[in-house]
């Protein structure tokens, strides 16, 4: 279809959306079955779950391939470009709200639920009748609640690996911005170097976080089961880590697309969308570093 500004663009029919709905269903059905399997029982949930995950990955590959081909064929006019941009911005906004739910849970627990369990406030009967010896505290000495769920644990010190990870992510934001400027100036070699660096920094971050988790589980006895401290710690950092993983994969794909010469100085929405996503992940980390590790 030609790029006439006075004609709207409507994409051709595609089977990918229906395929996507099917594989997402297989994924979720498998996950549900796996969670409900008897311990040690021979459930088929794991197999279905694996098939679902592979299906989702394959679907992404296929769907994006067709979109990239259409983009390279020059099918998309500036109006479509704006729609894509709006789509990505609002998607990131929805992600902000998702993390917002977990941050709010953290604030509620630290500001209300733990102090109330420790006897603060009026008419707080839980403290009086159930756990009158519980002194409200966060971190290693009380962050797992009055019943000491999960047993004694230690917290991950903020100024070790987490600080290093902060510096890594901040640097990666700088490198991805340099790559973006290089793209607009048309220096392909510089893009590849700095975008490659961003991918490596993302991978390094994930590597350190994996180390941190292993240390937390094996040496600090800090687990998902360590009361609300463990719950908030692992869900917040875990969901963030998942997003870093996705971001790193997306950056790698963009790296290969740069290598194949998919982007021009003016036409590189794919690159920008991933860069926005990467900055978003970075900002979430700053919140985590502040409220999960330091305070």
């Amino acid at each position, binding site marked *: 279809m030609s790029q006439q500004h006075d004609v709207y663009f409507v994409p051709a029919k595609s089977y990918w959306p229906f395929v996507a*709905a099917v594989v997402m269903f297989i994924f979720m059905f498998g996950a549900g079955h796996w969670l409900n399997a008897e311990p040690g029982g021979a459930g088929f949930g794991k197999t279905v779950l694996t098939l679902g995950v592979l299906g989702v990955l394959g679907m992404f590959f296929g769907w994006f391939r067709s979109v990239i081909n259409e983009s390279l064929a020059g099918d998309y006019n500036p109006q479509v470009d704006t*729609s894509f941009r709006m789509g990505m911005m609002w998607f990131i906004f929805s992600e902000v*709200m998702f993390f917002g739910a977990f941050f709010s849970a953290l604030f509620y627990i630290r500001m209300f639920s733990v102090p109330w369990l420790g006897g603060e406030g009026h008419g707080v009967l839980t403290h009086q009748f159930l756990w009158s010896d519980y002194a409200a505290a966060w971190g290693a000495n009380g962050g797992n609640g009055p019943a000491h769920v999960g047993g004694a644990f230690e917290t991950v010190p903020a100024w070790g690996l987490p600080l290093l990870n902060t510096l890594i992510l901040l640097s990666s934001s700088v490198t991805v911005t340099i790559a973006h400027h290089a793209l607009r100036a048309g220096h392909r070699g510089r893009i590849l170097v700095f975008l490659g660096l961003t991918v490596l920094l993302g991978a390094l971050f994930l590597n350190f976080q994996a180390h941190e988790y292993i240390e937390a589980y094996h040496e600090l006895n800090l687990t998902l089961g360590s009361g609300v401290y463990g719950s908030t710690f692992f869900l917040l950092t875990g969901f963030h880590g998942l997003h870093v993983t996705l971001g790193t994969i997306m950056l790698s794909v963009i790296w290969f697309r740069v290598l194949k010469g998919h982007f021009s100085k003016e036409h590189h929405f794919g690159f920008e969308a991933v860069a926005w996503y990467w900055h978003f992940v970075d900002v979430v980390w700053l919140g985590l570093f502040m409220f999960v590790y330091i305070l």
Partner: protein
Amino acid sequence: MSYAATHDQHDDHHGAPKSFFQRWFMSTNHKDIGTLYLIFALTMFFIGGSFAMTIRAELFKPGLQLVQPYFFNQLTTMHGLIMIFGAIMPAFVGLGNWMIPMMVGAPDMALPRMNNLSFWILPFAFILMLSTLFLPGGGPAGGWTMYPPLSLQSNSLAYVVFAIHLMGISSIMGAINIIATILNMRAPGMDLLKMPVFVWSWLITAFLLIAVMPVLAGAVTMLLTDKYFDTSFFNPGGGGDPVLYQHVFWFFGHPEVYIMILPAFGIISEIVPTFARKPIFGYKAMVFALACIAFLSFTVWAHHMFAVGLPLGADLFFMYATMLIAVPTGVKVFNWVATMWGGSMTFETPMLFAIAFIILFTIGGFSGLMLALVPADFQYQDTYFVVAHFHYVLVTGALFAIIGAAYFWLPKWSGHMYSEFWGKVHFWNSVVWVNVLFFPQHFLGLAGMPRRIPDYNVAFANFNMISSIGGFLFGASQLIFLGVVIHCVFFSKKQAADRAWEGAKGLEWTVPSPAPHHTFSVPPVIHDEELAHGDVHA
């Protein structure tokens, strides 16, 4: 007469693909996807309705008659989840899909393939959710709000949580699509303040959806990890708090209430001016009232939790904030009435449903104000008064608006007029029996009958019997609606004009009836006198 249509070379009936699979499973057409949404919503409405009929049959008289209490709890839970996520919301998305591109002069939605994905996720999500009824241990039975720790006892939790994740993904993508369509695909000259109120209502609703569906995803994810991964979010022993769930849930839940009513406001704002043959009174005030209601919806969530034991300051704040919402809502009701004032009114079926909406929704609004009063709410909490309140706003509110919209736009969709006689039969049956069904529940609630119970004190017997009779007849009346729709689409001989209603304004009435497979492939030229609100700047 249609400037847009004459310019469009694709504008014919041959645009639709011949292959059934290609047309309905691979669609990028907003009209076909809108139709799928509407059929899906109607199907879920009858499934959820059959649950409601079973509930009313069980409550016909005191004592246990038909179902076991545990199954009864599954019925109430599933009825809520299906009607909210399966019937009302998809029906509004279907209406938005069909009408928004035509109302703003766009060829389609901004992201048509994602649109198809948004729809196709839904049937699978509901298969996942409904399948739990057949599992050992049954479906979710802790109420649609899924409060812990009760909801954590059911093995169906994982499936329900994943089904809700899927529905959330679908809603968020649908909302992103609608925002991008409205902000990016309007025809030149269709200024924001010339858009129909229905389009405005959906723009604001879409924003609410993107803001709160992820929060629901977060809340149910915490339920999931509490049950299956040893976390302690809602376990006081581990430092958590079950009330935390209620806060996160209702931060989603209250805007969700407006997600289910703002598009209804938009629909009423289209129907009333058409049949009063006057422009809507106070167009800008209507738009700002919508925005106000949406903004306030984020500040009132704890009015669902007054009885849970909040600090006094919180109770007071949420009480006053809630009552504040009556102001923009009052503006809207006033403006609808003022639109009718002095108009040359006719009372076709859509208008009848719109007028019933205005009166009955206002009753639901007033009982809402009663519930907003903290001291009074301590009495009403979890009684049938609450049930009566939210059924007045959701059945005679949201559902009546959807049915009114279906009658209003069926001529445009199908190219035929429906049977006005049977439409009126449907209306009068619905409006009479819905009041017989729900009005006595106010009295039951004030007398102290709790909700979500299969058996009750004999003192409540008479009103329950009346309510059940109303319920059966209201349910049966909806079969008339099904008949009217099927007759209109497949058998009606009466052709609809392009402008199916004499007083109808707006771009959607400038294209032929039935609307061709592709409309506005070339941006239409906007003539202000064709719009309902073209002279808003004057």
